[in-house]
């Protein structure tokens, strides 16, 4: 893998994972305001975007498995990984928040 190829994959990861993260956060914001259709749409978009990030990420893992050391750890890659981990956290938290907001609405 060349530096350029790695850089390109990292920017894709940062864009897709970052966008997924942002959509999950937006979903929580929408649910908080009672805009449930919007929240659902955002979760759907987020999940699609996260899958694209996940697939690109799999290419990196595969490259490393086939040839240990093939993927150099650059700061761009570290940032991409943190966006992915963050997206996943917000998905998990989002689901918990949705339960909470629904419960609040029922108890009103």
């Amino acid at each position: 893998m060349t530096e350029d190829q790695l850089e390109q994959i990292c920017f894709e990861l940062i864009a897709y994972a970052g966008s997924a993260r942002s959509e999950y956060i937006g979903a929580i914001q929408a649910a908080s305001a009672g805009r449930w259709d919007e929240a659902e749409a955002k979760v759907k978009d987020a999940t699609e975007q996260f899958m694209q990030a996940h697939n690109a990420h799999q290419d990196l893992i595969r490259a490393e498995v086939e040839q240990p050391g093939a993927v150099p750890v650059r700061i761009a890659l570290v940032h991409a990984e943190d966006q992915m981990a963050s997206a996943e956290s917000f998905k998990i938290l989002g689901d918990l928040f949705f339960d909470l907001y629904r419960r609040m609405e029922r108890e009103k």
Partner: protein
Amino acid sequence: MKVLMLCSMGMSTGMLCDRIKAAADAQGVELTIWAASEINARENVGEADIVLLGPQVKYIKDRIVDMVENKIPVMVIDMVAYGTMNGEKVFADVQACMEEWEHD
């Protein structure tokens, strides 16, 4: 035209900034563009004619619109353009956004 780009750390945006500037230069359009982390948004928005948001921070859009009192446009960068570092596409979107803003 003064363009502020906000993202979570300001790193990936920095490289895209250069490409957007190059696209503007290629068309002979005068452009000043700089990147900042959303943490430093408040100190930077005053200088800008338009604020661009990286897709990772699109959820702060409403907050930034409030921050600029809706006096300048706030545009989320297209995710694919951002991921492929497509300076020309983003520059075209900026121009379209500014034109639309001036029409209203």
